[in-house]
């Protein structure tokens, strides 16, 4: 990852969402992006040029645009109408974003389009986040990593976030995944954690 004086940046055409620019690099704000927060908090799964990435929950394409600055190609899945409109505008300027207007819970719908990927990043607001990750595992190549953002409040508003994360971890492990690390995104995002998963 590229850091300038402790600030995470990416190299690409600026002006996607009004992001700041330092010395020609686009500032990647950890308060706006969970993936940026992950890097600020010591996340070690980096994105580099030859990587192919499946991104579930692409939303408005702000984080996706930074990921695309680093990666070879980003398959960006988003299911909601309004965010997809913005994502398309981003994808029109960045040819290595492949927009998929689809439900991440039904990977069969975009399976004929997505190639084998090195990294799966998931940031979806859904009650069954573990199930979605598991269903999308076939796209991940051997030795690939899945970064699953657990939005504890989307799964269960009443339960303690740590318990929710334990529950998700347990489900992922039951399906044969190995949780290498759990990184909580405090102080940038409340009640969010990133799970680093590999297939063992």
């Amino acid at each position, binding site marked *: 990852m590229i850091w300038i004086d402790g600030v995470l940046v990416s190299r690409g055409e600026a002006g996607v969402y009004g992001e700041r620019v330092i010395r020609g690099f686009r500032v990647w704000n950890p308060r706006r992006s969970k993936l940026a927060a992950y890097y600020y908090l010591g996340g070690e799964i980096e994105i580099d040029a030859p990587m192919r990435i499946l991104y579930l929950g692409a939303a408005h394409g702000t984080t996706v645009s930074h990921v695309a600055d680093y990666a070879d190609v980003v398959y960006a899945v988003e299911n909601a109408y309004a965010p997809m409109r913005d994502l398309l505008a981003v994808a029109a300027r960045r040819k290595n974003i492949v*927009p998929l207007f689809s439900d991440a819970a039904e990977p*069969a719908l975009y399976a004929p389009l997505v*190639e084998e990927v090195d990294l799966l990043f998931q940031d979806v607001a859904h009650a069954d986040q573990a199930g979605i990750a598991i269903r999308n595992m076939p796209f991940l190549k051997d030795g690939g990593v899945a970064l699953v953002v657990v939005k504890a409040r989307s799964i269960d508003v*009443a339960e303690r976030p740590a318990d929710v994360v334990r529950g998700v971890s347990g489900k992922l492990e039951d399906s044969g995944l190995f949780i290498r690390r759990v990184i909580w995104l405090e102080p940038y995002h409340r009640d969010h954690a990133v799970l680093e998963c590999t297939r063992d």
Partner: protein
Amino acid sequence: MYIIPGAPRSLSMPEYWFGEVRGKSCTPAGSRDPEYLARRLEGIRISMDSFSPLTWEMARDCGFVATREEYLRILHDLCMHRAEMSLSLVAARPEQELIQMVHMRDQLDEAINLLVEKAIEWHAARSPEFSRKYRVLRPASALETLLAEGGPHVREIATGIRHLSEARAGITREIERIAGTVLPNCSALVGGLVASRILAAAGSLEGLARLPAGTIQVLGARTALFAHIRSGSLPPKHGIIYQYRGVHRAAKGRRGKVSRTLGAKLAIAAKIDLFRGERDEGFLDAARSALERAGGGLVR
């Protein structure tokens, strides 16, 4: 092509966006035109049970593309095309504007209440005798008082609030009108505004028509529903439909029964609205009398 779930792997021929792969041989798609490829994709069914992801090299070996750049360019154009088509289909549905209007109206409600409250507090700070009085005033008459007695800035803000209220009234009439055409049967049962809110919660008319009655009954009571599923607290009897007076005016012991009946009738009404799009008087009469029976008396 239809793949039987659980069929042995050799029976399913993996089809990808660029062509069909069968063992070592591969048949590339007939054209690279996004429209052609999008139509071809419509016919592809993949079962995730026996799925192995594609690699771009397959497309190269298939003779579909020569380089990775070419592969990504054609794929990008195809997916842009598909997403734009799907978006335009969504945007073309009249109910989408209705949903936005419902959101705007609810937002206006909140804004108006907040602004009136703050304006009153400000005015009360200048003229203390006002503070006791306004508690018994309706917001509308509180606004009149502010317009008559307030300082110049308070009066200006009160004028702005009045404009917002007028806009809200206009939007409400428009919602009722559009709901009458988009949701003729649902509107006839619970009124245009409540019907539109239910539609907004479901996301689309098709989505609403696919929902089971029990879900429609508790739409908008998500927190209570999940609390019930999780910890076994009492299940919610009603969600948005509580706003329909037939429900909230029903005798307390009868509300659950009325809600259940109403959910069932709305589920039917939504399907008529989607597939026929016109009022069905026979259905409406039957539904109303079922609601009356459920309520144990008159529903007006």
